[in-house]
């Protein structure tokens, strides 16, 4: 096919259809005998205490923020990396200044103790 994004779209479709097929077969032929004990939340033989959707540690949030910054900036780096062969040396150094600013951000997070799992 000429258009590779059409191909990827078809692949996504098949990639969903093929995993769904055995699930449908299983839904048809597998036994279904639900009872309240079988359907209760699994927890080492004890009853679950309280709500299952517990609060999470705030540190996960800090790491997610740090990830967000870096991920966006790495997307900016891809065009630079891609055209490195055509770029003059000065433009390569500009890209390096950009990475150094990124690393300064990482050093700031590190100094502030945001990278500690406390």
């Amino acid at each position: 096919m000429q258009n590779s994004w059409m191909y990827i779209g078809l692949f996504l479709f098949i990639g969903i259809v093929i995993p769904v097929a055995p699930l449908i077969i299983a839904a048809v032929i597998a036994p279904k005998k639900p009872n309240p004990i079988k359907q209760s939340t699994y927890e080492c033989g004890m009853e679950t205490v309280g709500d299952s959707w517990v609060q999470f540690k705030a540190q996960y949030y800090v790491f997610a923020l740090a990830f967000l910054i870096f991920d966006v900036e790495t997307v900016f780096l891809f065009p630079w990396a891609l055209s490195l062969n055509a770029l003059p040396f000065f433009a390569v150094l500009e890209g390096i200044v950009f990475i150094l600013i990124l690393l300064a951000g990482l050093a700031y997070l590190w100094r502030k103790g945001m990278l500690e799992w406390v």
Partner: protein
Amino acid sequence: MSFWNFWTDPIGISDAWLRGLFAGWGMPEFWVSLLVSLIGIVVLVVFALVLDIMLVWVERKVVARFQGRLGPNRVGPYGLFQPFPDIVKLIIKEDITPAGADKVVFNMAPVISAMSVIILWAIFPLAAKVYGTDLNVGVLYLVAAGAFGTLAVIMAGWSSNNKYALLGAFRSVATMISFEIPLVVALMIPVILTGSMSLKTITEAQVNGPWFILVAPLGFIIFLISAIAELGRSPFDLNEGESEIVSGFHIEYSGMKFGWFYAGELLHTFTVGGLMGILFFGGWSWFGLENWLPWLSSPLMGAIAVLGKAMFGYWVIMWIKYTVPRIRIDHMLALNWKFLTPLAFVLLMMMAVLHSLLKGQDVLIYTGAMLAANFVLGWITLEILRRTARQQRGTVEAPKPVAQH
């Protein structure tokens, strides 16, 4: 003769034959190409899944050998047919949905998990002329498909209505998003070296030049570590740590839904092994032997080379999985943010400068300089690590004796 002609370009010839056939039936041009692509995709996905089924056997046999057991040895020769009864069992098992689960999200999660792996095969180049499609942003596509895997994990953990599952999903997402940064930076190194994001072009550059494992060994090591973390395999398998959160995000799944998580993990590991082969070990090239033996550059031998390299990568990941114990989450995140991420960025800067300085030079000088620079950077890193470790050991107080007589 036509038989041998077929094997020089099997995909191209069957493609042309099918197109001729459908056009002969009077189909419009658009539907012909759609149908031909559809057939090709189904064949490719079924091939990947058959491979996946055999990987179940490989995984069980190898873990058994690592642990001094025999592994599956009853069904068929060497237990080769063991996965088939396994699948039948998974399908006829009762499928339990826990009360209070978010049913839509709960049922979607395993499908998305399997899909995130299967779609990687769309751009997986098996040989010079055997690949799904040659996407010009292939490397970015790999990162995007990996993000689907993270989504599946958080969907499974959140919708299961189980504390273990939720904790596993939290940890898993923290690992995956953290290690994605060194992974992306390591992926950027082949992009710098070839000036292309297409996996096919990256492989061709290695067929005609040095393999990138020689040019960027440190990049390969960073890629290996962060890929294992992305896969959630031991020593980074905090998301399913059996001894603490039982099975993590897929604890409430049973039957074929669990089967998809398991099969998806195995196929993902194999695919990552294959990507290592494609990005750093020259894809379908046979160590440069194809310059003397032209039959080695045929598509069939190319596919054998890629799958063999993928199997080797898979074996290395299994080897690490079954020999290294699980590490603590704070150690794991410190390993990423304080070690791998700075190292990956420093390596990226070094490679960019060296590449733009040396790009016109002879291959031997270029490769030698890159290799030497990698070794120097690796040595400096090890020296810094050693100093830091010594310093930290100095600050820790000796344990006080508990019992005194």
